[in-house]
């Protein structure tokens, strides 16, 4: 799951040069570093919901909850458990 999310972020939110040059890992800040902005979070949330068949309420999709892939994993697992 971690690799799939990282790949998706590389493909969709980094340009080609950044994707090759940048060391993106599960602890890289996404929102606070500007890789993913608050508007783009919606498409990332939609990807997670579709991929993992979950529904993340808007009030849980906060910049803090999406700031690293590790935090995203926590969020996804929580909603997988709930469903």
């Amino acid at each position, binding site marked *: 799951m971690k690799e799939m999310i990282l790949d998706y972020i590389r493909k969709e939110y980094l340009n*080609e040069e950044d994707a090759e040059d940048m060391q993106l890992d599960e602890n890289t800040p996404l929102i*606070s570093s500007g890789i*993913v902005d608050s*508007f783009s979070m919606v498409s990332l949330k*939609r990807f997670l919901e579709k991929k993992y068949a979950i529904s993340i309420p808007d009030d849980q999709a906060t910049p803090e909850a999406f700031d690293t892939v590790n935090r995203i994993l926590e969020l996804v697992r929580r909603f997988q458990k709930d469903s």
Partner: protein
Amino acid sequence: MSQDFDYERLRREITWDVARRELGIGEGAPINLGHVCVDRNVELGRGDKIALVHENHAGEVRRFTYRDVKRLSNGWAEFLALQGIRNLDRVCVFLERIPELYISFIGVLKIGAVVQPLFSAFGEEAFFQRADDSRAVAVITQHKHLGKVRKIRDRLPELRTVIVVDHDATRRPLHEGEIAFSMMDHGIAEYPVFRTYAESPSVLHYTSGTTGQPKGALHVHSSVFAQYLTSKMVLDLKDDDVYWCTADPGWVTGTSYGIIGPWSLGVTQVVLDAGFSSDRWYETMEKHRVTVWYTAPTAIRMLMKDGIEPVKRRELSSLRHMCSVGEPLNPEGVHWGRAAFGLDFHDTFWQTETGAIVVTNLPGMPVKPGSMGRPFPALVAAVVDPATGEVIEAPGRVGMIAIRPPWPSMMRTYWNNTATYLKKFVNGWYICGDRASLDADGYFWFSGRDDDVINTGGHLVGPFEIESALLEHPAVAESAAIGKPDPINMEVVKAFVALRPGFEPGPDLELDIMNFIRKRLSPLAMPQEIEFLGRLPKTRSGKIMRRMLKAKEMGQEVGDTSTLDED
């Protein structure tokens, strides 16, 4: 304090000439924004004063004095001139909020060229539309955004030079026509600033409308008279202030009040180049002892979501004045500001075309939560009938917000589009395109826009631009975009799409279309919701009825459908 506030006295006493006199610029004398904002401060003895406190997402802080900014912007000016960039050439600045953005902006102005700021999150198509229309000769960018420039470079034959500010030996070589420039290595003490005059073009900001592609509002160097005076009287900036404007200079607030206004007053300003989080924002205010804060209702509503407790945990006693811009500030925002900070948010109204604040709540003026305030005292603003331009004086009657020209920061034209520019004037008034009414005390109350432009997070997005981009997606046959009400962003983009044969609606396709628009235009333009329809409602002449889709979305009466094509 509010009992002493005398608006009528201000109207009698305040003219734009006050700014001209205070800035020491004689009538008809040369005036260059680069000089006024930077070199003049050094001449006045502020050389060692901090002009810019810059903090990046990792928390690294860099400080630049006015002398630093003078030296580094001189370096930019010399470098740009060596690239053959001349007076009146358009130079795009396509950068994140890094120091190079703020300082190259000044450097471009110093050679008399026209600076064209572009939001760094723009995708390649949004960048292309704006650089193509302006016939820009150069773009200043960074590796993160270079890929987008490369994708459309072949379509921009007049774009001669691509300047990359963060290139080094560890990176792959630049392409032909690209050149590296390391700002910190090229400061020079003195550089002869180009002799521009009051009406010389200075800044070109693109803004979206209902129809057609974005239009370039062209401003001139004397705009500073309005930006200086409003920064002084509305933002209440004083010599010892530490000021934070949260806007990105890709948008007009970030240049008029994130560069020109505060620096023309010699004020220290803070820039945070990091994504939004409420705790980070409060930490920034506490750490840098921010005294004056200019932000947006969307940001205020995002802060409100986290409550007052995070504010109370911080030592924010330095903060003394707060203003808001970008969309109407709802009364709840004002009440929350009072509870959280013990201060009023002062709502301000203006737009790219006006270049500076035109209707506002002034310091000391009683704030009526939800009101836009009153006209800035140096200008005449009214609510008028849009057809006749007649002033509407009856309280509560809605008309269009209108400003009596001229004022220093009004746009001088839309680039390459004088016909549209001229349509903005009726009976001697500039018509803003926003509807409002007056109350018995002369306060303006916003009631809505008069067109289909989408205001999302305080930024205007044109539906036509989104619809055109949607049609470039291989699955899309017909498209319409509207603003859907949103509790945080005021509106978000919702798209209606009819698919080409062979494509089926579904979450995969929805996500693909969302990402397609995000990358081509910008995250702001990305539909947050897509509704698939068999066909879109059209008039008999084939025009998609955006108005009907919006009415249905809002649960309102659909209205006159006599022109609807029922086939």
